[in-house]
């Protein structure tokens, strides 16, 4: 698999992720219109001290009609990238810019890490799209995405393993009892089994902390990526975090390409 072909695959996956995210926003429309919750007339008060040359375009783009246009452009750009046989700088720019506008509209990331991964991939693809055919840029882009993907697991593991509550399983029990994520009853009942929670915590900590080993060999990459997909599907089942599945799936071709490259 060549570097440019791998980047094209990443572009297809992240476009699919953006397309699905945008469709979700269309379904959520009543919640962010002027008659809903995240009404721009309210949120714009956060920016009242910002210079007028920033506030005026924000008012134009993030009011009801402007934001519908932003989401429409985002949908079309994502659909275009899904079918184009190359990286389009213009469409990637539209996707990146609209993703950042969505974050402004929600006073920060709408869906935490999945927004960060989406922006990271779009930024890298956007830079590469201005230098098509340059193998150095393409390789650098893939390594950057692969390393950030490894960091996303490694850092998550390292910050957890420092806490005794993660090492003895209490943290996982606590998370399974959180009301925030609307956890299915079957998964919630697992919190009543401390040994299971302890064993699962250690499996998770070992998996996350050792994830960079995926880069050592293509076989280890396949093993870790399969485990990562299973982990994120479990996260979806338990916590409802569907956007993470799609955003991280988009990054995995880079890990696969870089594996064995050390």
């Amino acid at each position, binding site marked *: 698999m060549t570097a440019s072909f791998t980047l094209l695959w990443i572009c297809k996956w992240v476009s699919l992720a953006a397309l699905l995210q945008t469709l979700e926003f269309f379904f959520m429309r009543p919640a962010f219109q002027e008659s809903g*919750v995240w009404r721009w007339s309210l949120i714009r008060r956060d920016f009242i001290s910002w210079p007028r040359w920033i506030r005026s375009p924000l008012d134009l783009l993030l009011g009801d009609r402007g934001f519908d246009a932003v989401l429409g452009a985002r949908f079309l750009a994502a659909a275009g990238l899904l079918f184009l046989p190359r990286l389009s700088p213009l469409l990637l720019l539209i996707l990146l810019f609209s993703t950042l506008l969505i974050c402004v509209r929600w006073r*920060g990331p709408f869906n935490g890490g999945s927004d960060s991964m989406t922006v990271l991939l779009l930024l890298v693809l956007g830079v590469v799209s201005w230098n098509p055919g340059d193998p150095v840029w393409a390789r650098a882009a893939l390594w950057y995405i692969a390393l950030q993907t490894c*960091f996303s697991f490694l850092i998550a593991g390292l910050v957890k393993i420092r806490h005794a509550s993660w090492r003895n399983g209490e943290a996982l029990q606590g998370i399974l009892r959180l009301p925030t994520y609307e956890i299915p009853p079957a998964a919630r009942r697992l919190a009543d089994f401390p040994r299971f929670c302890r064993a699962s915590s250690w499996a998770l900590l070992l998996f996350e902390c050792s994830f960079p080993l995926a880069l050592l060999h293509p076989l280890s990459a396949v093993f870790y990526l399969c485990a990562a997909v299973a982990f994120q599907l479990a996260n979806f089942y338990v916590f409802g975090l569907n956007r993470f599945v799609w955003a991280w799936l988009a990054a995995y071709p880079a890990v696969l390409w870089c594996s064995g490259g050390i």
Partner: protein
Amino acid sequence: MKKAASLLRVLLPSWRFFERAGQVPQLAYRLLPSDPAPGAWIPCPAPVSRSWRHLVLNPRGNRNLAFHGLVERLMMDLNEWEDDRLNEFSSSVSYALVTEMVKFHLRRDSGLKEGRFQFKIFVADEDVLLSEEHALP
């Protein structure tokens, strides 16, 4: 600066997922009918069921996650609010957004068009914020 920093979080990911699993703030509201007894506290947002089709599109689930994010942001803002200006907290954007969220639920889930309500935020069993009385619409 804080607003800019929260926007920058998307550009500079920390990847510190689930570092701590402490108690989270929760929201509940109650209706204030004209008779003396207020209604029971109702958790908000109402939970939504999940199936595998939501792996592709999960608008209500993600909207609810964003609603919980509003409550957490309100608590962060409350903790950073200056003590001598606490009586002005209800004029903050975070407070207004949570108020609108309760109204949204009352209109859509309970079908109410008018009435009075109050909300509270609690952590474990301890109330940390009791709102003023608000009115629909």
